[in-house]
């Protein structure tokens, strides 16, 4: 009974995932598409839990539903109100109609062909036996890696280069956002209920982030999930209209943004000076080194994702923040 139940469960779950993805792309109303995309993020988090990938489920829940949804909605604020869906699909003149329709069908068929070849390749790959060389190698050296959670061991020890460069990619993306312009306008101070939600939600999010960071060594969790949870706490504060969302200003902000890559490089270089390979942690100190790197990475990921949500350099320095606050509470204007 157990496996039959699982198959029916999987079929319904996958139908929900494909249905949400299709609905999110079938509409021309941007807000509706984003809201459905956020729902898809939540269902995907359940799917990763079902596929025994709790680390990925934590990251998907924190980033897929929370952060990218909030990012997209903030960007969608400026969109004109949606035209009735039919009118945008209906082509303007008859000549283009034929062309438009043929083009749409051609693209759809091409995408179906792409999916078909992928499925054919997959079925081919699944037919030959899976030789688990990599997982066996990982579990063999897990003891020397300093952590007992295999995913954290892969991320922070065996493939430390990959994570170092990923933190550099994150930093570059935010520097690009800074170069492109000022932060998006803030949010109106929230009503009573929203404030009530923020008052308990932000502390619990911060506590969960600390717990995830600490648990990352022996259980699913780690710097990415913790950083994303912290960023979600900052996003909620910003949505509630608060001008001070825990981000330092000026030099300190830049230090925190660069902390992830900086600490990683410093650890690598000092190990190099001590005669070990660039990121080859000595087994005795591996655990504490990884924890140090993860703490720095958590803060820089949280700051980076929050600045990405702000959309640019936070324009309100502390002085302005106070000025903004007075202007908001001033009954006259």
């Amino acid at each position, binding site marked *: 009974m*157990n*496996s039959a139940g*699982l*198959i029916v469960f*999987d*079929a319904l779950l996958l139908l929900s*995932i*494909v249905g949400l*993805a*299709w609905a*999110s*792309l079938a509409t021309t109303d*941007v807000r509706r*598409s*984003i809201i459905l*995309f956020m729902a*898809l*993020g939540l269902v*995907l988090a359940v*799917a990763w839990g079902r*596929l*025994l*990938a709790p680390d*990925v489920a934590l*990251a*998907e829940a924190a*980033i*897929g539903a929370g952060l990218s949804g909030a*990012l*997209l909605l*903030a*960007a969608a604020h400026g969109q004109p109100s949606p035209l009735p869906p039919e009118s945008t699909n209906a082509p303007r003149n008859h000549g283009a109609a034929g062309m438009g329709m043929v083009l*749409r069908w051609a693209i759809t068929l091409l*995408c179906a062909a*792409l*999916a078909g070849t992928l499925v054919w390749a*997959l*079925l081919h790959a*699944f037919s030959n036996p899976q030789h*688990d060389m*990599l*997982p066996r190698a*990982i579990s063999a050296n897990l003891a020397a890696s300093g952590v007992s959670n*295999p*995913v954290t061991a*892969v*991320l922070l020890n065996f493939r430390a280069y*990959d*994570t170092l460069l*990923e933190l550099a*990619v994150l930093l570059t*993306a*935010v520097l*690009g956002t800074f170069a*492109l*312009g000022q932060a998006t306008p803030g949010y109106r101070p929230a009503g009573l209920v929203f404030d009530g939600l923020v008052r308990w939600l932000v502390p619990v999010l911060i506590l969960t982030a600390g717990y995830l960071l600490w648990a990352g060594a022996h259980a699913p969790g780690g710097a*990415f999930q913790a950083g994303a949870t912290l960023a979600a706490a900052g996003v909620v504060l910003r949505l509630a209209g608060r001008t001070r969302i825990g981000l330092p200003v000026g030099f300190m902000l830049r230090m925190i943004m660069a902390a992830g890559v900086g600490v990683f490089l410093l650890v690598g270089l000092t190990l190099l000076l001590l005669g070990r390979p660039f990121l080859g942690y000595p087994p005795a100190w591996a655990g504490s080194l990884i924890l140090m790197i993860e703490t720095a990475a958590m803060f820089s*990921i949280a700051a980076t994702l929050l600045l*990405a949500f702000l*959309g640019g350099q936070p324009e309100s320095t502390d002085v302005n923040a106070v000025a903004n606050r007075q202007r908001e509470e001033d009954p006259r204007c």
Partner: protein
Amino acid sequence: MLTTQILYALAGCVLLALGVRGALLHASVLLRIVAINIMGAGVFLLLIAVAYRGPGLAADPVPHALVLTGIVVAVSATALALALARRLQVERDDG
């Protein structure tokens, strides 16, 4: 175990195809960015389906680490794309 992997991998391919179609057909930049995120979700579904080893057994940690890194990079790429789209909008309005 194999049927679960195939089922989820199929859904991954369908999501990927939907994403490519959406990215090509939609006019609005924001909808294209959502379509590209859905393509990413399809690829992640594929990777995690390959990593699954059965209800009782531990899954393969390497694709998990890849997907974890992919999710974080995808959101920062989305943030950069949205900043570009916003700047494009400003330039088009002023231009």
